């Protein structure tokens, strides 16, 4: 595949065939806890997409120009977490200052994001798969959108499910996991479309 097409392939692959939530199980904790309401899910989804799109290339720069030259690759866990936490804090302050409406819409989700494993996971995948800078932007954006699609779809299904009779032992986490399993099966239908390892 030519180099110019590659980032776009990564973009679609990270949404569909390699959905970060449904095939790599990243960000499950907040996925299970927040997917009860459609609106909150969409808010969290947008916040995750935004933070992923920025922190993945940011961590790429830090890794390439700060850690590799000094042979400090083993410190990447700590450094990535610091970058993510600092960025989230910064964004929170910025939107609090400039846009009150946005702050009330997204503000409450931002602290949750630092501990969302999807964010750290995307940065770690980016290092392991040796993406270049452009690919890491597309990978971050695609992973975020994939996560957004998954949580919004789940919230929609769970809203319908409120009137359904679920066995008492399966209520809550159990039935959500079953639905996630079916969604993962549906997303497996995309595999073979694009193959990016």
């Amino acid at each position: 595949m030519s180099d110019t097409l590659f980032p776009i392939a990564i973009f679609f692959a990270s949404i569909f065939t390699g959905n970060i939530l449904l095939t790599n199980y990243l960000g499950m904790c907040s996925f299970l806890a927040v997917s009860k309401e459609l609106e909150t899910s969409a808010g969290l989804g947008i916040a995750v997409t935004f933070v992923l799109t920025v922190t993945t290339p940011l961590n790429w720069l830090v890794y390439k120009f700060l850690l590799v030259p000094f042979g400090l690759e083993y410190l990447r866990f700590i450094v990535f977490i610091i970058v993510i936490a600092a960025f989230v804090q910064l964004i929170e302050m910025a939107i609090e200052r400039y846009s009150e409406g946005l702050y009330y819409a997204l503000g409450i989700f931002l602290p949750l994001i630092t501990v969302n494993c999807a964010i750290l996971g995307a940065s770690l995948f980016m290092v392991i798969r040796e993406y270049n800078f452009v690919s890491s932007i597309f990978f971050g954006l695609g992973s975020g959108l994939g996560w957004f699609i998954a949580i919004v779809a789940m919230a929609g299904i769970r809203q319908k499910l409120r009137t359904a009779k679920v066995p008492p032992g399966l209520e809550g986490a159990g039935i959500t996991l079953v639905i996630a399993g079916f969604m993962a099966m549906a997303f497996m239908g995309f595999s073979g479309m694009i193959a990016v390892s």
Partner: protein
Amino acid sequence: MAKNQLKKTFLAPLGKDNPVFVQILGICSTLAVTNKLQNTMVMTLGVMFTTALSSWTISLLRNHIPSRIRMMVETMVIATFVIVVDIVLKAFFPDMWKQLGPYVGLIITNCIVMGRVEAFALQNKPSLSLIDGLASGLGYTYVLMAIAFVRELLGTGSLWGYQILGSWWTNWAIMIMPPGGFFMLAIFIWIVKEVITKEAKHV
């Protein structure tokens, strides 16, 4: 009294306060690594090591950490132990390290570790926190091993890499793929919840 408390601290995470199926924490790695027993064993040992030692360290420092920055300090301590796990794995089990990929690093964001530090280690003595961390790790271990046992057996017909079922067995490919993990955990939670609600009715 002291002995009683020790016993309670040790037993709670194994049963009614189990981090995986009661508190639903640390699900990411629960699902990702359980398609093979060997991977699961290594991963859970890493988590147990990190939880126990992070709880112990934070408990030692608990009177010196300003509460405003305690999250940051906790994350740093946890990340340090995870780096130790990562380096040891890379040095002695490079194949395993490659297979686990990013999930070793993701122990940092595993909610079990942070949860125990926040909920227990900040209020308790170092020795007790160490026991609590260890027990939480054990509670996590046996649930994961049970799930991995079923997934590997049905998915590949083998256990610990050895072929157990004969050639008559058709592999359930779905079990080692992502959906299998979701279904197995759901079934496990279902069974446990049914048992717990039954017991509660008897009492």
